[in-house]
């Protein structure tokens, strides 16, 4: 039994005449204990995908199956089921904690809202959760405003783990943290996942983070998954030009100074808007290798190597980018 099965998901917003096509034909499967990384920039649809998995919004097409139960209908019962099995660590530790509540109430909320346990068992569970995220007990009565960013993010992690979810979503959990703090929180997440064995989806644009937090990776662009494979495969030889561009764009310590135009794999121009997705391959306006077929025909998934797929007409895996 897989934990999550998304089949040919699409999601449109706006009007029928001018739709914003946030997700187009996305399929994903997550097994028990698996760690999936989703890489994408703004406009890729990753946020919409996360909201569908969390049960915050419905799909326009396709099916969503959670723990072998079809929840596509998004009924109230479906949503309750989802909330009991899927939890999220949010990106911004400043705004994802209610500044007026105390830490112990923030962590206890999922338990209270879903009627788990008694007041006594809940209090004890909150204490255990605080321990497992490395925060001292005296934080229970504090308010978020008294804590640092890293400490707040740990509270967010504790809250997400409260009801023992089967699937944990993390939306850029370390993006708003300082470098040194980010590493500590990441260490905590990796350690927790190893101990608890929860299936996990980590959304991040930071390929360094994904490397250490995911076993499989899906790269999204303008509402589609353009490449997918194991972490080892993708980092050794990414096949899709967008993935290659992402790798080239990472500024690394020890890089020599770049001069403009030297690197051929950099993507040009701006991300297109989901209102106006280009014909053919959606990446062609920015692709350094685009050719005629790219402008007219939508590429299908090509198996580049066993288990590694890319949506590209001119697949040319590139090694040595890492």
């Amino acid at each position: 039994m897989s934990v999550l099965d998304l089949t040919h998901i699409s999601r449109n917003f706006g009007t029928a005449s001018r739709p914003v096509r946030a997700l187009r034909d996305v399929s994903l499967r997550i097994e028990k204990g698996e760690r999936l990384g989703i890489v994408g920039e703004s406009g890729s649809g990753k946020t919409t995908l996360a909201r569908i998995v969390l049960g915050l919004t419905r799909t326009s097409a396709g099916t969503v199956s959670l723990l072998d139960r079809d929840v596509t209908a998004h009924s109230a019962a479906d949503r309750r089921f989802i909330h009991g099995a899927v939890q999220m660590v949010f990106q911004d530790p400043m705004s994802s904690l209610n500044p007026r509540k105390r830490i112990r109430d923030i962590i206890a909320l999922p338990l209270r809202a879903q009627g788990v346990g008694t007041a006594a068992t809940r209090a004890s569970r909150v204490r255990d959760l605080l321990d497992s995220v490395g925060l001292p007990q005296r934080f229970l009565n504090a308010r978020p405003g008294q804590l640092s960013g890293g400490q707040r993010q740990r509270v967010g992690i504790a809250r997400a783990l409260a009801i023992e979810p089967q699937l944990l979503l993390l939306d850029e959990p370390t993006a708003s943290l300082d470098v040194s703090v980010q590493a500590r929180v990441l260490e905590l997440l990796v350690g927790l996942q190893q101990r608890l064995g929860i299936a996990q989806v980590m959304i991040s644009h930071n390929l360094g983070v994904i490397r250490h937090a995911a076993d499989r990776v899906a790269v999204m662009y303008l509402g589609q998954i353009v490449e997918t494979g194991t972490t080892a495969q993708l980092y050794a030889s990414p096949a899709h030009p967008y993935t290659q561009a992402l790798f080239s764009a990472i500024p690394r310590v020890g890089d020599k100074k770049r001069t403009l135009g030297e690197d051929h794999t950099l993507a040009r121009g701006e991300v297109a808007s989901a209102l106006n997705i280009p014909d053919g391959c959606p990446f062609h306006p920015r692709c350094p290798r685009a050719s005629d077929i790219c402008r007219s025909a939508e590429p299908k998934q090509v198996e580049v190597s066993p288990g590694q797929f890319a949506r590209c007409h001119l697949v040319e895996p590139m090694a040595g980018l890492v």
Partner: protein
Amino acid sequence: MTDDIPARDLPIAGGVEDGPVSVEVPAWRIAVATLGKSPLSMVGLGIVLLIIVLAIFGPWIAPFPDDAGATVNFAERLQPPSWKHWFGTDIVGRDVLSRVIVGARISMMIAAFVIVLAVLIGVPIGIIAAYWGGWLGNVLMRINEVFLAIPSLVFVLAVAALLGPSLPVVIAAIALAWWTWFARLAYGEALHIKEEQFVEAAQVSGAGGLRIAFTEILPNLTSVLVVKITLDIGYVILLGAALGFLGLGVQPPDPEWGIMVAEGRDQLPNAWWLTTFPGLAIFVTVIGFNLLGDGLNDLLGARQ
């Protein structure tokens, strides 16, 4: 040569993950410190505290507490301000100072009840309209707008004239006019707050609408509400006094400031003290609450 004793026993001053980075300073201490910087706000605070003290302890402070009722003392009628009667005496010989002091209690009672009622009605309506939106929100806000369109004084006069003048009617009438402002304020703020990530986090946690509305959204409205309440108290008192002045509110012999102003009108310009002192009381009270409200506005705005 350097020491090579590891420094693990150095005092930790917020340098380890497990210390809160900042100490929680009680809200009142921040309030006092910030308000203290503005002389006007302190004046406002002083006036408000004075009025509250008078409202609570009036009958014990007033030099002639019986004069607040229906006593008569024709021997001392219409005396100008003197050492015995600081504010003079009125047409039946009652000490004006005592009546003004006890009148504070009536004004504050009106203010307190009106505000409590208006908040209890208006705020939930505003939050519900904002969070659920849709047709319910539309209906609620349209009803709100109907009430808002009627000028408060006219509305209150109509209700008081209809139901007969008395203290409970005054309170009910003003509250019915006033809830709309709180609904609108709560609506606007709640619209903002519901977009915050912690509301989404609460949804993901499985919290239902009512729980979110009242435990996530409502606590974040309190600063705005406190400011509005403070500023509004002045206007409510003024409205109550206006009703009293027109004879549609509290009835004599109760020493409500509005009535006293009205009664004193006939004696102008000779016995000027009959109108002036109650009028001053109204004036000072409203200004006091306004100054304090402005100070709180700056304080709470600065906190964000």
